[in-house]
């Protein structure tokens, strides 16, 4: 596994126009070239070259592809993936045919949707009637019991088609029951008069009529739902029969869209095509071979080493290690590392899990989190249709790691659902918190452990920063920066002095002159930061603003004061910030003790219930809290020491959706 970002090479190639299409397809199939337009690399040259604007066509491809994806969604099918496509074998799309096909399909679906709309309106009528019948709002409804003298009930059904009504013909009744809205009397009454509706004067039937109407309305609503489901099924079926064609069209459009993006990066002379882009060094031979194959050898390929290009312009890829993907996401969420520097992912993995374990040290609860992670992963694997957003397979993988970390820490500190069921490997954390630990360890011991842990994390961050600066040959910052050697030295001396002070019972600092010299010499050196920086810039031929001696001294003094504050206050705050690890751990114990005490006040099932609820609450609240705090410590205390986040992410044009993220060093 590579500790640093993936080394890159810059490709510049010239091919004959007649083979451009084949070259594009080869490059798309490889999917490793992060293109740079020549206008960026050589602006003066690019003005003499031509480009072919394909933006409009690309937009058309995108729009049509999006319409097709909508069809998949309506049919409840997964959108196809371009990963399995072969750009060389996919036929170019015929926009006219595809548009016409999609239009026809859309029209058919729209016609079915119209039926659905009518059902929706019918449901509104039924719902309103049912609510009034149920609540016996007789002011709002008219219940007529009687029969038509002239014509049949079918005439009523025909004429009331666009109204809220129910017409019942109970088997054992001579009469029909007609339910309408009172507010629609203006429309209902004239019709009933026309049909010579004879109302039955027997009022005793009203109650039974209401019961019958309620049943009928419920039945009609259920039937409306069934009909709606049938329409939805028809829509789905209409699309499903065309799925194969849709998949083919989707593939054609996707490939053409990506080829269009590649074309956008091409420049042309009268007979040749010129393009350029970054490729991971390990893959450069493969790319070269592919271009030569596609062009039949009629090409000129030139590679430029990364050392010859400005570091900030080189895209950054990190090696993909599948087991570390959850931690890679944490890094991506923060920013992109600078080219050629350390990939923070493995370090985050270690520090995050260690922090989590210290804050959530319980083997039993860790086992629950582990099982949640395993179950989630299992369900996601067996149902690829589940949408993965916040809850993704990487999150479940993280649960597995966090659960494992809590189990290990729980075994070290002897905690199993808050009880010391097995002898701890190191010491009993619970007893230390409540002050009954056999060897006299207490909360101060825990605080001390977490402070040492913080010092190790910060120290590691500083060392990683020095490695990065050496690789960047940034000697000035390596020596003078607050996270450079001088800053690190002062941090080390501070830690030594602080522990000596605590060791003396908060009475004296270390004796002798060493402390004075250890602090004074770097502070004096730090005072030379501004003149040294100015001298370096002048030597490097950079343009430096003219300043008087007085202004320079003032600037030097001010910067020195700011640096002192940042170094002393900053490192102190960073280190003490790790006490939250102890805080969370202690809170965890306190909560478990509280639930245990509450459980002891009861017996049997009630006691078990309290313990179960307590554990669930602690897992949900403390588990989340520990996860967030560990992330915060990594982002603010660890990353700020060495991770500038000024990198440019690597984005090759590829058929694989995550091509820029999943780089394997030996692909």
């Amino acid at each position: 596994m590579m500790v640093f970002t993936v080394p890159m090479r810059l490709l510049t190639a010239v091919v004959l126009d007649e083979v451009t299409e084949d070259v594009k397809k080869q490059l798309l199939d490889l999917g490793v070239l992060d293109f740079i337009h020549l206008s960026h690399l050589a602006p003066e040259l690019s003005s003499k070259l031509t480009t072919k604007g394909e933006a409009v066509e690309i937009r058309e491809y995108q729009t049509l592809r999006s319409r097709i994806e909508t069809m998949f969604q309506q049919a409840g099918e997964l959108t196809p993936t371009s990963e399995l496509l072969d750009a060389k074998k996919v036929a170019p799309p015929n926009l006219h045919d595809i548009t016409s096909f999609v239009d026809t399909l859309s029209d058919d679906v729209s016609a079915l949707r119209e039926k659905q709309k009518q059902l929706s309106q019918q449901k509104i009528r039924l719902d309103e009637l049912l609510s009034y019948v149920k609540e016996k709002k007789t002011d709002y409804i008219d219940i007529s019991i009687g029969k038509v003298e002239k014509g049949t009930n079918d005439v009523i059904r025909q004429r009331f088609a666009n109204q809220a009504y129910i017409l019942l013909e109970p088997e054992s009744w001579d009469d029909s029951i007609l339910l309408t809205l009172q507010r629609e009397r203006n429309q209902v009454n004239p019709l009933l008069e026309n049909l010579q509706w004879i109302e039955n004067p027997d009022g005793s039937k009203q109650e039974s009529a209401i019961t019958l109407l309620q049943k009928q309305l419920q039945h009609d609503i259920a039937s409306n739902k069934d009909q709606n489901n049938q329409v939805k099924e028809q829509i789905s079926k209409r699309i499903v029969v065309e799925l194969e064609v849709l998949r083919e069209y989707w593939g054609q459009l996707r490939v053409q869209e990506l080829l269009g993006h590649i074309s956008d990066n091409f420049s042309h002379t009268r007979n040749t095509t010129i393009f350029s882009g970054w490729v991971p060094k390990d893959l450069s031979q493969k790319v070269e071979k592919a271009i030569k194959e596609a062009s039949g050898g009629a090409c000129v390929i030139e590679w430029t080493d990364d050392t010859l290009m400005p570091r900030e312009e080189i895209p950054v890829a990190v090696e993909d290690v599948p087991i570390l993907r959850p931690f890679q996401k944490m890094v991506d969420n923060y920013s992109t590392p600078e080219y050629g520097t350390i990939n923070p992912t493995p370090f985050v993995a270690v520090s995050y899990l260690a922090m989590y374990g210290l804050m959530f040290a319980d083997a039993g609860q860790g086992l629950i989190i582990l099982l949640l992670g395993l179950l989630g992963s299992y369900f996601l694997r067996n149902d690829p249709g589940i949408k993965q957003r916040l809850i993704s397979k990487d999150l479940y993988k993280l649960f597995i790691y966090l659960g494992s970390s809590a189990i290990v820490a729980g075994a070290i500190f002897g905690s199993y659902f808050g009880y010391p069921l097995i002898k701890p490997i190191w010491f009993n954390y619970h007893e230390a918190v409540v002050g009954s630990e056999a060897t006299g360890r207490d909360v101060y011991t825990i605080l001390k452990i977490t402070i040492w842990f913080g010092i190790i994390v910060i120290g590691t961050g500083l060392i990683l920063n020095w490695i990065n600066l050496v690789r960047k040959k940034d000697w000035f910052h390596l020596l003078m920066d607050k996270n450079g050697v001088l800053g690190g030295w002062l941090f080390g001396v501070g830690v030594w002095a602080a522990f000596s002070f605590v060791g003396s019972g908060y009475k004296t600092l270390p004796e002798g002159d060493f402390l004075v010299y250890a602090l004074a010499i770097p502070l004096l050196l730090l005072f030379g930061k501004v003149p040294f920086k100015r001298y370096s810039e002048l030597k490097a031929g950079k343009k430096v603003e003219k300043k008087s001696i007085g202004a320079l001294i003032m600037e030097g003094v001010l910067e020195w004061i700011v640096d002192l504050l940042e170094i002393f206050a900053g490192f102190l705050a960073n280190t003490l910030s790790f006490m939250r690890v102890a805080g969370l751990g202690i809170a965890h114990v306190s909560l478990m003790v509280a639930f245990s005490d509450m459980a002891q006040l009861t017996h049997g099932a009630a006691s078990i219930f309290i313990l179960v609820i307590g554990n669930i609450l602690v897992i949900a609240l403390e588990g989340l809290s520990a996860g967030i705090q560990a992330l915060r410590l990594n982002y603010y205390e660890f990353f700020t020491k060495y991770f500038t986040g000024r990198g440019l992410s690597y984005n090759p044009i590829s058929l694989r959706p995550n091509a820029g993220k999943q780089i394997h060093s030996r692909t």
Partner: protein
Amino acid sequence: MSLSDLKRYAFINAKLRSRIGGMLDEHQLESLLQSQSLEELFHHCQGSVYEQLGPLFNETGDIERLESWLFSRTVDLHKEVASLIEGSHALVVSALNRKLEVENLKGVLRLWFSNRIKGMNIDYRYGYLYHKHIVSDIDWAAVINAEDVDSLKETLAHTPYADDMNEMKKEDLTSEGMFFLETALDRRWMLLLRDVVTHLPKKDRLLVEEVLNRDADLKNIINLVRFGYVYNVEAAKLRSLMLPGGRLLKTEEFEEFVQAPVEKRSLVHLVGKLFIDLAKELTSLTNPTAEEQASTVEAYLFRVRKKSYQKMLRGYPFNFGIIFAYFFLEERQNTMIRTIINGIHYGWKSEKLREFAL
């Protein structure tokens, strides 16, 4: 910054800013405008706050249900904001929410009018309106089912709209339609709002009053164009249509406008002193119709509001501005979505959609 401001607004400011951050961005909006069918539109809404529109449409195929959902969502969001703040501030937010209640009431009354006064079949349409509690206790079913004007007044007797309802006569309704009742309800809303605004602490009060005064002025100008020109409404009636507050009603130009015969009413003269930029815009129109002039004022009002709410978002975070800005952005986005849904339904091309939606 006072501690009470911080305490009151810290949480709501963070919450509303996070909601504003979750609104559709330019890129998403562009995708929505490019949609050629409703299904595509909902496909692009995935992952946004409008994601539920897609499943709802799949379930019903009914765009009016989508509009109901949008309204219902707005009511819920506004009520939630009111629940996150206390005291006079909560009263003001509730009073602002009353605007939604007034709009819903106007919708129900329009249906009632069509049904009872015009004798038309309103069929399922009442089902699309909001039936739950917003601010006042209104039995919406009782309103829509009221047999006559007196019963209608009875259904709203215990609400703040009772006085406006009591002034309504069946003859006026028959001859003039719902318009005057609707403007009376708008005025009632504004009066109720202004009443609670007076209880706010000074800084918030001044901020809210400034917004209300400006809105009242420009809305009054729009009404003066529509009814002063097109319908030639006489001076007294025209005055009664005006929303309270603002500076316009106190000016000589306003008096001159309402008193003058239609052909002598000058909009440029009316707005010249208070809104110089608007006057310039109106002058630049060649032979404008009343509708064009009203559209120009509406566009101006929109721009001014947008600018002022953007300023509030960028400015001091612990005041009422964040709530105003959130409501404005929420309303604007909902209107855009509603316009796009209707536009696509009626087969508009993306250029026309853009023209109406943005």
